[in-house]
């Protein structure tokens, strides 16, 4: 199913950097951000969504709750909730996220760490077992029908 292409939307509290804008430095935002221009530096949105538009070129590390890439990122990405790399997007860098969606045709080079979000703290004492620092997030696998193939084994 094709994804809907996100567009800048200032009506719902989203800042926007247009395609003719170039920024050198650090960006902090307390609302969603749409970047369609060039950014060199760092981008940090904490609890918000960052969208790199199709013309966007980001040479920086990126930290946000959710990151959607349609353009180009060269730098590490830390998306606490979800990262989407759309068709024709290009991401070169290391990824740390809870969930990742990558479309066919996207280019990615780097490492992927799936980090499960910290569970909400409760007053009970049920969680006595220590948890590993990183755990994979269960994601449904492909449903393509399988079929057996016959293999002949030759040992050296």
């Amino acid at each position, binding site marked *: 199913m094709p994804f809907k292409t996100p567009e800048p939307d200032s009506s719902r509290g989203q800042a926007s950097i247009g395609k003719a804008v170039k920024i050198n430095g650090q960006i902090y935002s307390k609302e969603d951000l749409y970047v369609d221009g060039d950014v060199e530096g760092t981008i940090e949105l904490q609890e918000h969504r960052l969208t790199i538009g199709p013309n966007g070129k980001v040479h920086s590390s990126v930290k946000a709750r959710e990151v959607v890439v349609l353009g180009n990122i060269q730098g590490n990405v830390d998306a606490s909730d979800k990262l989407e790399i759309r068709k024709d997007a290009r991401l070169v860098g290391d990824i740390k996220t809870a969930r990742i969606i990558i479309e*066919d045709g996207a280019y990615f080079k780097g490492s992927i760490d799936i980090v499960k979000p910290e569970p909400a703290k409760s007053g009970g004492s049920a969680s006595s077992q220590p948890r590993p620092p990183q755990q994979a997030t269960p994601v449904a696998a492909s449903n393509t029908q399988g079929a057996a193939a016959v293999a002949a084994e030759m040992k050296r």
Partner: protein
Amino acid sequence: MLRRPGATLPPGPAIIVPGNHSSATTLFNKELVTSRASRGLEQFFAFLRDQVGLSVLDLAGASQQNINFITNLGHRLYSEDFVRTLDDVFGEADPGDQANQGRIDQFLRQTLNFENEQFDGVLVWDVLQYMTPALLAATLDRLRTIVRPHAYLLAYFHADEKAQQVPFYSFRIKDSQNLILAQRGTRKPAQIFNNRSLEKLFQKFESVKFFLTKEQLREVIVRR
């Protein structure tokens, strides 16, 4: 955008393609998709299955299925689109240039430059057969340095020694025993290997094991 050469297949919904394929084959989103069992894959993941936090290198570029499968096992995945970089550095037309030492160094810097990382497994897939001898030797030497001792490499080679063009696949992991092969077209191999030449190719590694399949595809699992 993919720059790989290959025949364009018409768009449309999934269609069962009749023919002599030994497993389910469909045409989906311009790709000829085949699902098949893989003994090599089974052995590869038998080594990784009972551990977590390992590092796996996938040389076929990023795909949703491979990311899901490997990260669900609790491992860290490194993704590298080997063939795309091969074409970027050497061009698609002239494999003769793959003997140029400067370009070989450039290619290795772009693809296997992991000074502080060692891998517990490498999904090589079918990329080695598109390399001429000088580049292939340099690539295998580099792979040996970035793979931990006793770790495994999983590689595929087309077995038809007379083939001028071979199917060019995107390899996607369905589960620990089954693969989905999405054919993106055809490509001219730089070398064709038989069992003897494969043994010679991997002679610096601890062991090599072959699985011959119906689809003229030779699965090779190599232990560092």
